[in-house]
């Protein structure tokens, strides 16, 4: 049988990558090879997820700390001094600490949680399981990808504890603040550690991305043509392509920045005075960095949101027992978003002195993104339309994703206009926009994925009641936090300020800021509830008794409840149909492995 050949070639691949000698069955793995330096994609996915959860707690806790300052600028919290030491003398966060917290919150959430924690987890878990492969194209590189991420995490974590504090010039690390150690206390070794950590992070992302792409293109099981793949796989594929093409450009920007810091070059520096003294640097351009950064930075937001989109598509179809609406349109719009992602970076730079004529093109291309996004939203809504919806926590979070993606996306149309952007740039309007459309939405996609595939990962279910509480508090809380920020932004309240109380025009927001900070604390506590639910359920959750608890069609549910390395004990099943045959011909669902009946037509 031809499957034999596929099987054989995969074993050879695993062999070549330095894995064990035989792969037909599970054998005695040591603790180290099973849980630490594991080459099993399922274990690597869990490693990414748990590391991501730890980072998310830290990153979110930082936001609680700086929201305390923003909501209660005059209050003192003595307990702050006991955890932050001289960064919170007398129980009040210092301006330096505030900037460090804001910068680290952004860095951690954007890169370590929503990039590595999200696509790292689910690409690893789902790609081999859903395309029908025993493991990734190169399990060794996959393992390396996690450990580079771990190293990056360690370096970033270390930077939190150095005496001058972590990098604090904003998560975008714009020069000259980031290029000159004397510019501020947060520009010293913290920035070097930040750049080192991010370089390691880029390596991790590239190793992972290469693997995802070649696994999807090369290692699909028999019958799994590209157009039979679940939309999750399509979204992971485009995510990986974006990452592989844009992260190297970011790295080159970082290398130039590092040279400016330590080798005396002037790529980004020109005509700078520090403490009244002129620096020798001449001929550099700080804007150059912004171009290089945002050439990654914009695709990066799609790297964050595409996996969430894919998982939401999958969960919505399963929980409404209907085929996904417009499967090919979904793929087409993912592709369109990918192309446009590379052509809109300058909309982050409308007020840098960009030629307005050039700006007009970027406005047009930016607004074009509304088209594929609207197609996706339409398709999600029509998928659940008149569906027999099962309101599991996963499906609620998916519906929540659609909601936040719409409300956050609409404000993107405002910001994408270069003329409105002159007023709104760098205000709380921007904060509200991107937190709703990529922060909250991506988290909702991630939560949907975790609740939905938790049984596949651990063979147990998460607690539903806690899940419902988690969903409703998070959804309502997210809107209560970010909706008012739109008004603050329209009033012109700038972001990244430590204290607004001396600014008469924003005194009207005093109560609003307190309210936002209060909700932040509440929502943060609810996330801890989720973390508790997650870890408790790993050990004590309700046990899974059937292979396919959600009655889904895709291949991952044909594996045993506790699948070993290699996923399927026997042969890899063959695929005969697409992944969305729900409520077809009077049947609730038809697995992908079932051949088409004599009178049946493919989708």
């Amino acid at each position, binding site marked *: 049988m*031809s499957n034999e*050949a*596929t099987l054989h*070639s995969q074993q*050879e*691949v695993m062999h*070549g990558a330095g894995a064990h000698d035989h792969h037909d069955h599970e054998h005695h793995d040591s603790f180290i090879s099973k849980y630490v330096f594991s080459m099993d994609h399922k274990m690597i996915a869990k490693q990414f997820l748990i590391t991501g959860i730890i980072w998310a707690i830290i990153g979110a806790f930082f936001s609680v700390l700086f929201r305390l300052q923003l909501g209660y600028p005059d209050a003192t919290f003595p307990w702050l001094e006991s955890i932050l030491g001289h960064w919170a003398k007398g129980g009040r966060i210092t301006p330096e600490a505030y900037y460090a917290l804001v910068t680290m919150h952004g860095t951690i959430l954007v890169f370590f949680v929503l990039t590595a924690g999200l696509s790292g987890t689910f690409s690893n878990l789902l790609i081999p399981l859903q395309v029908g492969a025993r493991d990734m*194209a*190169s399990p060794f*590189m996959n393992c390396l990808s996690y450990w580079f991420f771990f190293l990056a995490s360690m370096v970033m974590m270390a930077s939190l504890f150095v005496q001058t504090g972590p990098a604090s010039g904003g998560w975008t690390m714009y020069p000259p603040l980031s290029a000159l150690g004397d510019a501020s206390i947060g520009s010293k070794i913290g920035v070097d550690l930040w750049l080192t950590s991010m370089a390691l992070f880029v390596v991790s992302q*590239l190793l992972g*991305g*290469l*693997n995802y*792409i*070649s*696994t999807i*293109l*090369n*290692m699909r099981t028999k019958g799994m043509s590209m157009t039979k793949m679940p939309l999750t796989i399509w979204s992971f594929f485009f995510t990986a392509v974006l990452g*592989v*093409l*844009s*992260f*190297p*450009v970011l*790295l*080159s*920007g970082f*290398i*130039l920045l590092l*040279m400016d810091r330590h*080798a*005396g*070059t*002037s*790529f980004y520096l020109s005509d700078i005075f520090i403490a009244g003294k002129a620096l020798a640097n*001449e*001929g*550099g*351009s700080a804007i*150059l960095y912004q*171009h*290089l950064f945002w*050439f990654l930075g914009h695709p990066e937001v799609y790297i964050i949101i595409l996996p969430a989109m894919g998982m939401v598509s999958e969960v919505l179809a399963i929980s409404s027992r209907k085929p996904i609406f417009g499967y090919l349109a979904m793929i087409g719009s993912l592709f369109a978003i990918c192309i446009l992602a590379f052509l809109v970076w300058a909309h982050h730079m409308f007020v840098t002195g960009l030629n307005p004529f050039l700006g007009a093109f970027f406005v047009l291309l930016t607004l074009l993104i509304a088209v594929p996004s609207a197609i996706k939203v339409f398709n999600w809504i029509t998928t659940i339309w008149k569906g027999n919806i099962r309101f599991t926590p996963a499906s609620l979070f998916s519906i929540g994703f659609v909601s936040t993606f719409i409300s956050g996306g609409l404000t993107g149309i405002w910001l994408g206009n270069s003329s409105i952007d002159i007023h709104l740039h760098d205000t709380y309007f921007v904060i509200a926009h991107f937190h709703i459309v990529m922060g909250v939405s991506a988290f909702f996609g991630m939560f949907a994925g975790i609740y939905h595939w938790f049984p596949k990962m651990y063979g147990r279910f998460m607690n539903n009641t806690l899940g419902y509480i988690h969903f409703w508090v998070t959804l309502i809380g997210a809107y209560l936090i970010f909706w008012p920020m739109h008004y603050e932004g329209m009033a012109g309240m700038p972001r990244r300020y430590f204290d607004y109380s001396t600014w008469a025009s924003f005194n009207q927001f005093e109560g609003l800021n307190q309210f936002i900070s209060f909700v932040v604390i509440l929502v943060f506590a609810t996330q801890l509830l989720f973390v508790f639910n997650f870890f408790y359920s790993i050990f004590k959750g309700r046990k899974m008794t059937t292979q396919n608890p959600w009655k889904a069609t895709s291949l991952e549910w044909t594996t045993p409840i506790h699948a070993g390395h290699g996923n399927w004990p026997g042969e890899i099943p063959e695929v005969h149909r697409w992944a969305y045959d729900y409520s077809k011909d009077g049947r609730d669902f038809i697995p992908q492995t079932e051949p088409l009946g004599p009178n049946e037509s493919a989708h």
Partner: protein
Amino acid sequence: MQRKKIHPHKYSLWIAMGSITMMFIGFTSAYVVKRSQANWLAFELPHIFWLSTAVILLSSVTIHLALKQFKERNMQRYKQLITLTAFLGVVFAVCQWLGFSQMKSEGLPLSGPVSASFIYVIVGVHILHVLGGVVALLVMFFRAYRTRVRSYSAVPIEVAATYWHFVDILWIYLLVFLSIAR
């Protein structure tokens, strides 16, 4: 019937090469942007870069021959040829380095004008990629001496050879680019 599939490792390599290319596109487009601004100092590239070009072209020939010898199982010749290739790779790196010291002696240090800094960074990062290839060849070399596990698969050497040709072509691109866009 089985579809003729390209080996996943080769596939990954092609994607990796695309990724590395993007990095150098990042550098060279930064160079183009910077060049169009004021205070750009044009100068001639060190002449030794032409010698290093010849060296790396020659090394592409030797690794091609090495691959051929491997497929014919002439392991002795194969080992000699990959050693020679790795050696030429090191010679290339040394030549580039000599080019750097020549620039320095002409008053164009790393911390000098931006146009010179770009040369150091771009050529420097390229050297690192060549040295990465040298390390890969050393691994292949020691693998060829293993007696316990004998490998008949040409995939690893094919992957290494493709990568080697890639850094070669990348250098030609950089040389042409840096000579024209001065």
